[in-house]
């Protein structure tokens, strides 16, 4: 759901209160009236949340803390995010694993119960429909979360294939967890604080693992994961208990874990080198091009069996034509669609997302360049408002990740 105006906005700097923006502001106002609200909406507003339209929802982009400070605090202490706008669902049935394996690149059968992985839903051409974290609860139960902006197309896609699958006798059904809310608790204090609220020993739960357990007296789905590069959790909780849990977490951390908005969340995932669907991943970009080859299980590289497998396996064999890489640069922060040139002034690609890194205090960006020009250390020019700025290709993550893994 991207309007033409955003396309325009990508190449023309936005003006503060310029006449044209008044018309745009009116549209936002109209959108505001129709936006969905999470159950934490009033809690956000009461805590100084700046609410903005996001994927059809009214979501906090920031609170009293600046985006810079929120980003730094997440890495130093911790952050609590409302990500209830994202869509959680369960697939159940004896054949839920083979069903899902038709749609995603992950080796779902190979997941141990209680573990999960990042995966990609593909289309017939091998492009990314969405990325998702999937978790095998049991052999006949998969829990997954898809992105807010992709919800409608994802659900339509799954439903279409489920109908065909069931028509052939497959045993699979689904439940969309709209009665639940999702909180993301991220950062070094996430585990110590959450431990105060549950009896289960969280030190025995590792990155990517899933548990159903009581937190603050309420049964929750807990996944040790996040999209910040930090250790942390995503907590799916019945919506009626979500505000109480948010308050309990903030209380237990004595103010060190701060409510954090989508603005900082985007800075954090960018610093971690993670893809933003709609920027770094789209329908025409394959997981290979996006550097997500690691997410295709070994068995699946041999067998295929997912949509677009022929394209993807061919790219695995021959190498893709473009590759996602990271950049450092000087001058203005790069933004989506900034052109990338080689040192001779030839176009070699485009920035997909970028900005200023609060942790590194320098510009960082993710983009796609022609294969062969993707090695770390390759010098490039990034064109911003018609001017050429020095850049260099770099490995990602920009800021080291701190996932909790067995040592």
């Amino acid at each position, binding site marked *: 759901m991207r309007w033409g105006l955003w396309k325009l906005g990508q190449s023309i700097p*936005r003006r503060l209160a310029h006449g044209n923006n008044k018309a745009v502001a009116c549209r936002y106002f109209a959108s505001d009236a129709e936006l969905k609200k999470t159950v934490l909406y009033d809690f956000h507003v009461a805590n100084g949340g700046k609410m903005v339209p996001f994927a059809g929802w009214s979501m906090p982009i920031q609170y009293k803390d600046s985006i810079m400070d929120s980003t730094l605090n997440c890495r130093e202490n911790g952050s609590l995010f409302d990500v209830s706008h994202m869509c959680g669902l369960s697939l159940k049935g004896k054949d839920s694993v083979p069903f899902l394996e038709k749609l995603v690149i992950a080796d779902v059968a190979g997941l141990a119960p209680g573990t999960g992985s990042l995966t990609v839903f593909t289309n017939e051409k091998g492009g990314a429909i969405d990325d998702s974290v999937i978790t095998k609860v049991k052999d006949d139960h998969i829990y997954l979360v898809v992105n807010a902006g992709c919800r409608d197309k994802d659900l339509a896609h799954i439903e279409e294939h489920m109908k065909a699958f069931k028509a052939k006798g497959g045993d699979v059904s689904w439940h969309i967890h709209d009665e639940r809310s999702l909180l993301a608790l991220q950062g070094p204090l996430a585990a110590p604080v959450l431990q105060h609220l549950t009896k289960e020993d969280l030190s025995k739960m590792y990155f990517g693992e899933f548990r159903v357990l009581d937190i603050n007296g309420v049964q929750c789905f807990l996944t040790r994961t996040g999209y910040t590069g930090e250790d942390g959790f995503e907590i799916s909780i019945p919506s009626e208990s979500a505000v109480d849990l948010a308050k309990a977490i903030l209380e237990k951390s004595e103010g060190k874990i701060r409510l954090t908005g989508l603005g900082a969340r985007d800075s954090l995932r960018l610093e971690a080198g993670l893809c933003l669907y709609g920027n770094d991943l789209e329908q025409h970009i394959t997981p290979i091009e996006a550097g997500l080859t690691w997410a295709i299980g070994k068995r699946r590289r041999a067998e295929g069996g997912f949509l677009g497998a022929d394209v993807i396996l061919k790219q695995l064999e021959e190498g893709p034509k473009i590759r996602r890489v990271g950049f450092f640069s000087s001058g203005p922060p790069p933004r989506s669609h900034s052109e990338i040139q080689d040192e001779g002034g030839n176009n070699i690609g485009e920035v997909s997302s970028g900005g200023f890194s609060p942790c590194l205090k320098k510009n960082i960006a993710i983009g796609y360049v022609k294969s062969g020009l993707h090695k770390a250390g390759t010098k490039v020019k990034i064109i911003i408002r018609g001017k050429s700025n020095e850049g260099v290709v770099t490995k990602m993550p920009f800021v080291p990740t701190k996932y909790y893994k067995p040592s």
Partner: protein
Amino acid sequence: MACRQLWASRAASYLRISVFHRGFSNVIKDFKYVDSHEWVKVDGNYATIGITDHAQDHLGDVVYVELPEVGAAVTQGGSFGAVESVKATSDINSPISGKVVEVNEALNSSPALVNSSPYKDGWIIKVEINDSGELNNLMDSEQYSKFCEEEDSKH
């Protein structure tokens, strides 16, 4: 799994939306203002220009200021540079027409001066004024404060 949407273009406008506000933005009585949130301080045939406290408050942490060249012409209402925050890019428009005679080089290494001192150390350009009559089109501090209140209350 991330916040999906384009940030740069959207955030620029969204960050103008205010729910939490520090109560009021600072204004300087003798300065003139425009509705795109720049200020101008006149000194004879010369004027100093920057963005207002209200603007920097909405932008958040400024990480880069794109400055024009000395000698460049600026026109009333026209863009002469840009200010970049963590999430957004915004044009800087000139309140008056003239020729740039000085730019604040300190902003190259310390763009945060725009946040910490928008009316003094965070000034952006100085211009030689073409037509002082243009100053009559601008808002005084009282008018500008009222304009900001009205703008904020709409969001």
